């Protein structure tokens, strides 16, 4: 691995600090429980990765698990199945211990009581570098304070709070004041779409590039209002997407469904943002490096500008404003 050129990011909470050697993390819900992506992406390039959502008690999958393809995206409805926190440690604890980068456990933030209990369990485990709390879309000021506060009172681990896109501007401040060490903006927004197989309207999480514009806006708004470190998340599909979040005020980013559709981009994004070597190594196969992967679709998009149409992309001369 090449030397890391960008300074590390420190997120301190309680008595412990989460150190990210790269601003790019794998997001909850897309990355799996136990490093399922270890064979597909260069895990050690990432700053950290977040487990799929875990509850205190096991959750069965939704009886109607559904995947609905949308334009440039997908709606996913799984019911957030997970083995519960105790069994998750038995099933995945060794893999978490062996992870080359910090592991953050995502807790489903149902109630203050449940979160307290989970925080106490996690407290004893050195293989866990931080907690991320997921909030329900409908959680408002008081509930957010109670849930985050419950975790804060029980753990010295850094606490990240992932905010629903819809309520992020409203609950960012209470989450921060109640003890969040960083805010993740945002969780995948929820939507409704018709399932082509059953003909029924289904609710679920939305993934894909179209999520980015809204999450980036929320990141910009909240970064200007709340003094917490912000982690941008939503629709990142290229190094440029990730850099947009940093420019809007985020200290780091989480990437989600791009891992499903173009896992090779994960390393590219992490290398780019981490200041790592981007040059194509001599003798490498096109699979391993492609300039083109940084700009999917850019050539098609450029076609809405007819004047520049049939020429290669051009750089304006220096003396033009």
């Amino acid at each position, binding site marked *: 691995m090449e030397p890391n050129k960008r300074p590390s990011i420190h997120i301190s909470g309680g008595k412990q600090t989460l150190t990210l050697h790269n601003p790019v993390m794998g997001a909850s819900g897309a990355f*799996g429980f136990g490093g*399922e992506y270890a*064979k597909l992406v260069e895990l050690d390039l990432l700053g950290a990765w977040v487990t*799929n959502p875990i509850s205190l008690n096991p959750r069965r999958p939704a009886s109607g698990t559904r995947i609905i393809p949308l334009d*440039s995206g997908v709606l*996913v409805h799984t019911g957030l199945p997970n083995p519960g926190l105790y069994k998750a440690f038995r099933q995945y604890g060794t893999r978490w211990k062996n992870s080359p980068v910090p592991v953050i456990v995502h807790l489903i933030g149902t109630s203050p009581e449940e979160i307290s209990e989970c925080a106490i369990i996690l407290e004893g485990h050195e293989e866990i570098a931080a907690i991320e709390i997921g909030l329900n879309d409908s959680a408002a000021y008081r509930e957010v304070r109670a849930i985050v506060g419950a975790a804060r009172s029980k753990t010295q681990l850094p606490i990240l709070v992932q905010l629903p896109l819809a309520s992020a501007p409203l609950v960012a401040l209470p989450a921060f004041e109640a003890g969040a060490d960083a805010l993740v903006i945002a969780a995948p927004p929820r939507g409704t779409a018709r399932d082509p197989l059953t003909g029924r309207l289904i609710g679920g999480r939305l993934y894909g590039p179209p999520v980015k514009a809204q999450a980036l806006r929320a990141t910009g708004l909240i970064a200007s209002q709340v003094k917490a470190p912000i982690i941008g998340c939503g629709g990142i599909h290229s190094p440029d997407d990730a850099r947009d979040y940093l420019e809007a005020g985020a200290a780091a980013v989480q990437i989600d469904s791009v*891992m499903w559709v173009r*896992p090779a981009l994960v390393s590219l994004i992490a290398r780019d943002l981490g200041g790592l070597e981007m040059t194509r190594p001599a003798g490498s*196969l096109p699979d391993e490096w492609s300039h083109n992967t940084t700009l999917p679709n850019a050539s098609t998009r450029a076609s809405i500008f007819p004047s520049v149409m049939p020429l290669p992309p051009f750089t304006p001369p220096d003396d033009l404003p």
Partner: protein
Amino acid sequence: MHEAQAIIERVRRVSPTLQRLDVAVDRRQAEIAPGQLLLARTTDSYDPYLRIPWVPVAREQGTVVIERPAYQSYTPGQIVSLLGPVGKAIPLPETIRALLLIAYQAAPTALLMLANAALARGGGVALALIGSAAYYPVETLPTEIEVIRAHDDLEWAERDRMLGWAEQVVAVAPAGFDLPAYTRLMDHIQRLRVEPADGYAYGLFHPPMPCGVGACQACLIHLRGGHEAAACTDGPAFDLKGVRLDGA
């Protein structure tokens, strides 16, 4: 299981509705076994967003043969991105003598590599094309395969004889209709053989697979005993004896 680029080397129209692509794949993906999938991206656009499952109908010397609808457009020389092989091989006995394949309201595409493997081992292969599958262009199939076509559902004439003849049955039905289809298949089997042997009847499960690596939890199949398995890592073929066919 990895992501690699592949090249479409040849595009052949094999029937009015189907075309087949010879795709040069990398060494590890060329080892793909019957039942396993490749998840393909053919454009730079994110529409469609999820990768398209490609189930080869044959493989040979670094090339896999992919069957696609004729109305789609592919070009020789086109470079595609493939993720795979996804899933496990369909278990096939070393000395299979009689293999019954059933395509129920679905193309038999995902069964053809298995058919070829059984033929190569000297086994007899019958393929029942039920419902809309009866419209599948049989001229594309190896002539050694005995084809049975039936328009009306699982009540086909030769059914009980074929189920008795077969050492192994592998069925495919479309996502969303797989459980009811396999339920009825198992009902018929149970009426013939009090309790079917382990590994006698397999069903293929092809839910959409966003990740293909067991991470997104979107392709879970409910198994007997109250646990779940991911179609993408433990399937797509499951011994139907072990599946909760009521889906609960």
